């Protein structure tokens, strides 16, 4: 419930109206008129409201807070007119089953009141002209923004002009999980003018080890508005919008259109391909990342620069994608997603700043391996025969026939018998100790791109790549396909794990 009133607020009556047997906690916030402001005495305040809109905005913000904290009931009352020091200007009560939700909902409600309720106040000072608070340029906001950004603006590659570009930018963060949390945190810190977070999911306990915008009290709550709340608290100069929705073929185009850059921080291939297609068709740069266990892959797709996702041999067969590509619920190393999310923020900021050429990963795929502390950069050129690139800019271009594109992944059961194909396991010596090398596989260090180039050179024989989890080998296979090696495949699901307790060759480790 929200109300504007010219009458003194009756706190006891409001408290009584919130009482209900299922509530175990009641938190109240009262905003009082102070007798001083910025070191000057204040004798009274005159509150003026745009009443029609204040009523509808107030009702909307109370409804949003209650929606964000299921089971919480809120009453918010704001005074108008002439108030003296000690008077209650705003009263917010929140009840919930447990204390945490009531504290947090009340806090959010007052922050939203201060952010958006169309109410102004005139301050009266003894012996001086009254002042409308915030109505002059010297509100402190602009001054604070300059100080906030000072260390970044001091970079010659950013400067005042770059900071203005960032402030004018509109960035979509699709997915607020392990990638989206760190990415959005650093985009907000960089002063991106408008940041839109889209995620239809709710916070789960198993998210917290890597999704740093959320706290224990957020578990069960919708992700996008909670993340937006955390970001607004960190940088009030940024407009943060939240949409609790999945990205679908229905809303994707509207969400992407007009953006400076889009970050794909989702965890499934269907959304990934959808965002890729819509971004390229809309001419909006896409910074895409994916993480599996310890490893991540990052690409920046910009129309007309470098290969698209289909140049890399990405199939469009949903069934095939479903079995290998979704990382929801999979084991994951927290810092690995954090690193990739930060890399996404870095690439997105450089896109906004207008950096080009090899400064941005538009023509490269970055492979990050947190376990072996390695970052590998692979060229990702456009493929001459790519059916998608040939239709770039056309709506629905991806609907072109992909029937001639051989599947990227092959199952261990489908490996051809030893014969003309070459089999290469991209593994470090340490990883090699933990996996079984199937018959015919040659081990090659993942960073040995020269050795790989030599192995890939004879194009007449198929090349099968493998790695511990199947991610690194797939990324390399895609890059090789983009470079013109058609007959390259990745072993689905990665290499089989060595069974626990199995002795190494030569029996040097005998547990008995």
């Amino acid at each position, binding site marked *: 419930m929200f109300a504007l009133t010219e009458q003194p607020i009756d706190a006891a009556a409001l408290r009584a109206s919130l009482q209900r047997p299922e509530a175990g906690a009641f938190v109240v916030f009262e905003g009082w008129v102070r007798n001083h402001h910025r070191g000057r005495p204040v004798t009274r305040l005159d509150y003026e409201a745009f009443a029609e809109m204040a009523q509808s905005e107030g009702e909307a913000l109370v409804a949003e807070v209650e929606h964000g904290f299921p089971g919480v009931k809120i009453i918010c009352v*704001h005074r108008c007119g002439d108030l003296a020091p000690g008077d209650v200007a705003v009263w917010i009560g929140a009840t919930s089953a447990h204390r945490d939700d009531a504290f947090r909902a009340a806090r959010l409600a007052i922050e939203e009141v201060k952010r*958006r*309720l*169309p109410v102004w106040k005139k301050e009266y000072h003894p012996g001086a002209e009254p002042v409308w608070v915030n*109505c002059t340029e010297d509100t402190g*906001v602009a001054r604070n923004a300059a100080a906030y950004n000072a260390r970044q603006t001091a970079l010659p590659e950013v400067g005042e002009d770059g900071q203005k570009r960032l402030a004018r930018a509109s960035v979509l963060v699709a997915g607020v999980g392990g990638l989206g949390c760190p990415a959005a945190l650093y985009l907000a810190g960089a002063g991106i003018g408008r940041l839109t977070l889209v995620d239809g999911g709710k916070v789960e306990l198993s998210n917290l080890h890597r999704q740093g915008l959320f706290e224990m009290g957020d578990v069960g709550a919708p992700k996008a508005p909670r993340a937006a709340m955390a970001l607004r608290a960190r940088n009030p100069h940024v407009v943060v919008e939240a949409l609790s929705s999945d990205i679908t073929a229905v809303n994707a185009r509207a969400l992407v259109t007009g953006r400076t850059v889009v970050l794909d921080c989702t965890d499934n291939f269907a959304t990934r391909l959808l965002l890729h297609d819509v971004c390229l068709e809309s001419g909006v740069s896409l910074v895409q990342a994916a993480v599996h266990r310890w490893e991540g892959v990052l690409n920046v797709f910009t129309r007309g620069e470098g290969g698209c996702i289909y140049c890399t041999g990405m199939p469009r067969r949903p069934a095939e994608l479903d079995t290998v590509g979704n990382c929801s619920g999979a084991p994951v190393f927290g810092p690995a997603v954090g690193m990739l999310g930060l890399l996404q923020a870095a690439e997105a900021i450089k896109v906004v700043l207008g950096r080009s050429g090899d400064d941005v990963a538009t023509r490269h795929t970055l492979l990050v391996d947190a376990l072996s502390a390695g970052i590998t950069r692979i060229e990702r050129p456009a493929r001459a025969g790519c059916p998608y690139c040939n239709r770039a800019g056309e709506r629905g271009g991806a609907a072109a026939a992909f029937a001639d594109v051989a599947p990227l992944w092959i199952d261990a059961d489908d490996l051809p018998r030893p014969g003309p194909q070459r089999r290469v396991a991209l593994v470090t010596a340490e990883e090699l100790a933990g996996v079984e090398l199937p018959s015919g596989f040659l081990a090659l260090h993942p960073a040995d791109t020269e050795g790989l180039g030599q192995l890939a050179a004879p194009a007449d024989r198929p090349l099968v790549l493998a790695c511990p989890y199947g991610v690194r080998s797939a990324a390399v296979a895609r890059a090789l396909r983009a470079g013109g090696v058609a007959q390259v495949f990745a072993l689905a699901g990665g290499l089989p794990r060595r069974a626990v307790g199995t002795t190494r060759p030569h029996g040097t480790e005998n547990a008995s």
Partner: protein
Amino acid sequence: MKITVKFFALLREQAGCRELTLDTTAATPVALYAELMQTCGLSVPSGILTFAVNERYVPAATPLAAGDRVVFIPPVAGG
């Protein structure tokens, strides 16, 4: 086209009225504000304003239509 403008707080005092109906060619709220800064002596810099059309917050460059009710919103100071 005819547009109704409502003024609040400092802008109300500077405009000298609560409401004004005027004939304008301004296509957007921000363009309309620039026009009124001249004719009504409004001093709040447009960069710190937000805009409402028909009692809803809208982007500064939203196209205006005849009959719209426009409000220029200085940084709010509730609470």
